[in-house]
């Protein structure tokens, strides 16, 4: 059962790499394959929700020797989220005409990478899936093939390759110190590892994931890339690919380095607060929609890191709720930023309010969760930081919305299909805001998986 989604995506990607993706039928078939993979993940998810974590070891090796695939609630939440975002963005692009024949195959390779790293229980296998997702993202950034997009792709590739090298170094340091690559066994060995090597490998891995997330000192590549790429690609990068960062910090921080995470919570808090304030202020001073959204992403990941720094079950589940809503918001906003019309305008407004955290839209639930985490910590500093951040995001999102409404109405032609995609995401965000219990329950179950949540 665990192999099924990966098998669907893998064979799909290889077959679609040979077909011509600019053909409308082929492109729709690729969307159908992604949906099939999503359905199989959800079916797998139901059984995991009822019976607990499932795992399988490849090649009939003994557990701990062979590569393990392990599916738990945390991985499932992020896999479902990433694949849904990819489906939406791909469907949107198909309705606008695909311009490169490999585009659907690239999306599918990215889907394999993202699903695989959520489902793997092996640290080195995590790196391999991570690279599969990243390499398809490098190529995808250049999609559109204007000089500007190639410049964006080059920056993105160089910076993220460095991140991958850091991750690789962190993984091999972990192997040297614990003697295992299986994440469960590494986590069991970690308490015996001396303090300095443990902190060093934790730092390497944290830096690698922060680069993916675009956290404050590692954010420099992000605005150039998000403004340079096309809307659907930017939506995939910020809605699906950035999940690698959140998931990775949660997985490695909560499972393998709970001790180091708790010790460094002060440092993480400083990075998170700088990110929130810096992202907010920069977004306020920018004019074009994509630039505002890019800097807004830097600010929003600050909340995720702050919630992780608070730690415990409340902090981790708040980080998951916020990450889910943030992905949906950014997908909706990046997709609707280049479009005109009443439905798109409404969708954009819902996304903008969601980022600002206005009830009853979904983003409010995310903000509420991080405020609850701050209350748990009883920290006035965190509370005021979140307040300032929310005020900033409200101001810049409102500014952006006002500027959009004033724009020329007939700039781009209307396509009914793209409205449907934007409508679906917008309705999902509003639905989460009105009925948040399923997401909250899922996020708590997901946080329970991590040993670090049990303090």
């Amino acid at each position, binding site marked *: 059962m665990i192999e099924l989604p990966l098998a669907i995506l893998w064979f799909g990607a290889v077959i679609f790499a040979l077909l011509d993706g600019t053909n409308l039928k082929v492109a729709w078939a690729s969307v159908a394959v992604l949906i099939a993979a999503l359905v199989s993940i959800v079916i797998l998810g139901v059984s995991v929700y009822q019976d607990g974590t499932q795992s399988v070891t490849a090649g009939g090796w003994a557990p701990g020797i062979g590569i393990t695939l392990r599916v738990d609630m945390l991985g499932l939440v992020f896999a479902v989220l990433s694949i849904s975002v990819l489906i939406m963005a791909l469907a949107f692009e198909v309705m606008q005409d695909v311009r490169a024949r490999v585009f659907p195959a690239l999306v599918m390779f990215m889907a394999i990478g993202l699903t695989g790293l959520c489902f793997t229980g092996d640290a080195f296998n995590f790196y391999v899936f991570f690279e599969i997702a990243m390499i398809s993202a490098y190529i995808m950034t250049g999609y559109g093939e204007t000089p500007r997009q190639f410049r964006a792709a080059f920056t993105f590739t160089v910076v993220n390759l460095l991140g991958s090298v850091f991750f690789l170094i962190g993984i091999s340091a972990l192997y040297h110190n614990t*003697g295992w690559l299986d994440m469960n066994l590494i986590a069991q060995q970690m308490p015996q590892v001396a303090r300095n090597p443990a902190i060093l490998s934790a730092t390497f891995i944290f830096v690698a994931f922060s680069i993916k997330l675009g956290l404050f000192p590692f954010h420099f590549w992000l605005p150039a890339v998000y403004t340079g790429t096309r809307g659907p690609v930017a939506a995939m990068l910020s809605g699906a690919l950035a999940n690698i960062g959140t998931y990775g910090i949660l997985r490695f921080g909560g499972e393998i380095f709970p001790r180091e995470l708790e010790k460094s919570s002060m440092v993480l808090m400083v990075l998170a607060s700088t990110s929130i304030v810096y992202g907010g202020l920069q977004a306020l001073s920018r004019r074009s929609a994509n630039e505002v959204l890019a800097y807004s992403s830097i600010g929003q990941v600050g909340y995720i890191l702050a919630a992780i720094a608070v730690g415990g079950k409340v902090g981790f589940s708040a980080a998951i709720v916020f990450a889910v809503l943030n992905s949906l918001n950014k997908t909706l906003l990046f997709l609707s930023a280049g479009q005109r019309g009443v439905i798109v305008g409404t969708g954009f407004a819902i996304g903008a309010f969601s980022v600002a955290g206005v009830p009853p839209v979904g983003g409010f639930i995310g903000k509420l969760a991080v405020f609850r985490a701050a209350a748990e910590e009883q920290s006035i500093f965190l509370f005021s930081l979140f307040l300032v951040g929310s005020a900033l995001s409200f101001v810049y999102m409102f500014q952006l919305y006002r500027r959009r409404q004033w724009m020329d109405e007939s700039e781009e032609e209307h396509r009914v299909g793209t409205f449907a995609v934007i409508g679906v995401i917008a309705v999902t965000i509003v639905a989460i805001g009105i009925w948040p219990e399923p997401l909250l329950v899922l996020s708590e179950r997901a946080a329970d998986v991590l040993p670090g949540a049990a303090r």
Partner: protein
Amino acid sequence: MTLILSLAVAILFGSGCYLMLKHDLIRLLVGMVLIGNAANLFIMSAGLQTGNAPIYPLRGTVADPLVQSMTLTAIVISFSVSALVLALIYRLYSSHTATTLEVFAQAEEAQAEIDDQSEELVEGAG
């Protein structure tokens, strides 16, 4: 042995970083390859035991085969990514007729100016 290996990793990583700060894209790529190789050497030195080659029939103590397979995977990945970056550099060269970062920075600034102007036009129209 550990000292020699760590020195080698340090020198590779250092020269890679130095080249990455250069303004020429090809040097930048060579820097990236060097840093990738520093990481590969680091994985090799992270092996748990040293000894003979781990090929059947085994003779005495054998070297840790796991790090070797990890390095092999990492080499394949970094090789393919280098090819990808070279292709990107070629596309950049064919559209900008240069491979220096200054040219791209200028193009980026020009693009930002165009963006600003179009935004101002829109605001004016409103």
